[in-house]
């Protein structure tokens, strides 16, 4: 019964997807060729029929799931991220990819790259920081309306159609992972932005008076792809994978999670708080390149 419904849903979703161009913004992707291309007809989110080069149309017609479906995790998965601090050189490509995919403006990034220094004697390092998708998430515990929730696949998501904007989750999160839409999201000025069907799995569109954060891109995971930041990193510093199959990949190499953490002394940030994060760090030892203050680092 349930299976049937699900199939029907998927079918209708695919049918809708075939004539919809949900991800028109991906046209700014890096692989646009300059040559003349075959044109295709697509229906824009605001109902206009336009012709665009074939490469600009999203290749697949995946339609992200709605708020109700998004509460159920991807079965038999437990997602995990590993950040190799020895490889991060603060290129900030992960931030760009994330901002682009989630239509974010630089004032409320889901990823931050922090300049860290553990003590006076040690050399500083760059620490990419996302939502840690804790297994004992303080934000979920305090939410008065279940607007933020924990899924079976380990991901903590936000339903911004449920969020009342009390910001208790922001106070509760010890990692400052959450950002708030204090005003009208600047990107809502983009044409057609408001007509994008909302999905907690894409966190798009953002809404005024609600909270947002890194979501581990479940829309990509449902298509058996890794989050955008992973593929964007030029240094392979970010690994992503599944705890249950004990595998993580940085796009180039695929390794055993347990072995990686053991051999490179993986740790979790502020382990002692008991939040059980699903993001691991590998210490900044044996660095490929020495630490450099980068221009984009406007120390505050």
């Amino acid at each position, binding site marked *: 019964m349930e299976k049937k419904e699900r199939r029907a849903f998927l079918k209708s979703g695919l049918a809708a997807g075939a004539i919809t161009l949900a991800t028109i913004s991906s046209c700014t992707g890096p692989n646009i060729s300059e040559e003349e291309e075959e044109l295709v007809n697509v229906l824009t989110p605001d109902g206009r029929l336009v012709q665009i080069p074939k490469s600009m149309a999203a290749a697949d017609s995946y339609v992200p799931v709605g708020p109700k479906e998004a509460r159920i995790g991807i079965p038999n998965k437990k997602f995990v991220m590993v950040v190799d601090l020895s490889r991060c050189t603060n290129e900030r490509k992960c931030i760009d990819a994330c901002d682009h995919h989630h239509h974010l403006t630089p004032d409320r990034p889901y990823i931050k790259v922090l300049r860290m220094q553990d003590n006076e004697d040690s050399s500083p390092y760059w620490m990419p920081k996302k939502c840690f998708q804790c297994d004992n998430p303080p934000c979920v515990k305090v939410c008065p309306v279940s607007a933020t929730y924990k899924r079976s696949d380990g991901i903590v998501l936000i339903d911004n159609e449920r969020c009342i904007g009390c910001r208790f989750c922001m*106070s509760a999160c010890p990692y400052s992972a959450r950002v708030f839409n204090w005003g009208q999201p600047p990107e809502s000025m983009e044409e057609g932005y408001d007509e994008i069907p909302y999905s907690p799995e894409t966190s798009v569109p953002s809404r005024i008076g609600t909270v947002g954060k890194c979501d581990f891109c479940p829309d990509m995971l449902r298509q058996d792809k890794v989050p955008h930041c992973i593929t964007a990193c030029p240094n392979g510093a970010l690994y992503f994978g599944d705890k249950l199959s004990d595998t993580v990949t940085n796009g180039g190499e695929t390794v055993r999670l347990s072995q990686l953490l053991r051999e490179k002394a993986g740790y979790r940030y502020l382990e002692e708080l008991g939040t059980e994060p699903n993001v691991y760090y590998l210490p900044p030892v044996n660095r490929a390149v020495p630490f450099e203050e980068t221009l984009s680092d406007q120390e505050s």
Partner: protein
Amino acid sequence: MDLVDNPDSTREVGKSRQQIEQDLLRHVTKWTKNDKLWLLFLGVVILIGVFAYYRQLRYGLLVTAMRDYTSWGIYISNFVFFVAISLVGSLVSSILKLSNATWSTPLTRISEIIAIAAIICASIIIIVDMGRPDRFIYVIIFGRIQSPIIWDVIIIVTYLAISILLLYISLIPDLALCRDKLHDVPRWQKKLYEVFALNWKGEKRQYQIIHKTSSILCIMVIPVAFAIHTVTSWLFSTTWRPGWDSTNLGPYFVSGALMAGAAVIIIAMYFIRNSLRLKEYITELHFDHMGKLLVLLSAVYLYFNINEYLGPSFKMVGVEGEHITELFFGKYAYMYWLVQIFGLILPIVALIYKPLRAPFPIMVISFLVIIGAWVKRFLIVIPSLQHPYLPIQDVDESYLHYIPTWEEWAITFASFAGVLLIVTLIIKLVPVIPVWELTDNKE
């Protein structure tokens, strides 16, 4: 602390029943020019606040100075302040009543009125703080009992209900008195007395019911009053923020609230006594007793303050140490020490001297206590948020500090005006001093 001396002090008035009734009903009937000017003033302040809130609804919380790190601001600290003030109702009409301090009888009604006004404005201010007030109903539809916010909603509603009952039950005989004695009032007002007096005839059985009900409520309100401010403290202590992550926070908040409540009642006594010409009913004795009570409550609060700050300042570890440094020597130091000296130490020292417990000086000291109490809640809420575990980097300049905008101040002042407006309107409708408890008590 000789608070229960002379149980007959209320009868010191030494006037005939008729005279007492006349004195205490006087302010209900007349609307003086000053009353009207006062209402006009409050109305203007509230309207400015409403305009500021209109701007906030239109542009979002962007009009405030709150940003991603300082994600709670003076709305929340003001909310905590009002919840604190609301404890005054239970302090006077319950704790003092149960301890047989009969001198406090003339103060019960005013304290209950202030409690209700404060709790109503606390509820309003918390809705103002919401990013999506249009979804307020979700708190009921989707409420998660595991969230401290839901505990707070439940306890606030409960406390408001008990406080209204506490006020109303003791009002019934006086409403009947108004119904019988006041003839030159508008018809709606007369109708109001008639309906709400619930056919009170002053029968013995009716008195029995009223005494029984109010003593049950008196006892019931104590755990609820403690709970309301303890639960409010849990909104903070259930997180890992420096300064909030403390087991001391519940009693710290409750003791601070009782102290602020005592100061509020002293200020209210002073102005009601003078503007309504009730000097024979609210006497110097009341100021003297309340002064001693304020010393006691301040000393208790001082004790919890020491508990709150000594441990972390001795260890000075990590973000907790940063937070303490900021308060003691950093950008909040001047606020912190002014509050601790003028809002906490001064009342303890000054009010030991009897001459300073005279109406005017004690009113001034109570004002300092109240201002201190408000600023203290600012210091509890805001600096804690500015010391997260991970450093604040790569953010806009506006994220680094918190200076409330005019919209936030306008709404805050409007909430104060709201409390004063509710208090004023109730006082203009019913006798502010329980008449029947002064005249009929012996029956």
